[in-house]
């Protein structure tokens, strides 16, 4: 059984680090043991584990124990909010258009 860790870790924050995004990319192909993941990075093994812990806490990966080995697997559903481009862009444009209106109002006053 996969232990449920705290899900307080923010998904957005979890993917804000390049190494963690690369880890997620690695896991799109297959589930992998830590050693396999670590082999792709120059950082220390504990550092890799720490990044995996953050991904785990965000629910972006799950952990399975196979004997002494722990394997990590991507949980693609958790990326739904990230992939919501439309929602992000809506906020983006609402913000930009508000700026446009403010700019016009300001220039008009001069």
């Amino acid at each position: 059984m996969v232990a449920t860790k705290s899900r307080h870790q923010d998904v957005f924050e979890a993917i804000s680090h390049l190494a963690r995004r690369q880890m997620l990319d690695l896991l799109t192909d297959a589930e992998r043991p830590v050693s396999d993941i670590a082999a792709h990075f120059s950082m220390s093994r504990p550092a890799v584990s720490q990044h995996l812990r953050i991904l785990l806490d965000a629910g972006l990966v799950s952990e399975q124990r196979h004997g002494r080995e722990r394997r990590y697997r991507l949980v693609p559903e958790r990326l739904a909010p990230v992939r919501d481009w439309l929602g992000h862009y809506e906020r983006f444009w609402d913000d930009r258009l508000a700026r446009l209106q403010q700019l016009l109002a300001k220039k008009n006053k001069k």
Partner: protein
Amino acid sequence: MTKSIRRELQIPQPPAQVWHAITDRATLAEWMYPNDFEPRVGHRFTFHVPPNPKVKFEGLVVRCEVLECEPPQEKAGGRLAFSWSAGALADSQVSFHLELDGNGTRLLFEHSGFDDSQPFGEQAFKGAEYGWAKMLKQLTAVMAGPAAEHN
């Protein structure tokens, strides 16, 4: 299936002023980002979204090409449209349609071409430069940054 974002704004300023704000490079940079826009169909330009170390955002380049560029006339409305490619969002379209509305302007904005049928993985995930994550961070950065100051 593709989706789009539509907005309709009533702006007190006349179309000519709004047109200037969306087609003048320097003014465009004030409410969007640094760019090399030119009001000419076929012109390729970019918006440079600057890095924001506070949120570990590395910066982003949005690639665009002017598709339509018709300044507002005495009677007819104006229309500006350009393609928008950033990260894994390729070839979407942004358009501004200006109509005279009393002494002011009705601005119809649309950003179309969001393909939500694309399966997870492939391009979205393996896309050049982790585009999806960058784009996300851009928007997060924007919202956390100067964006909030107008309230």
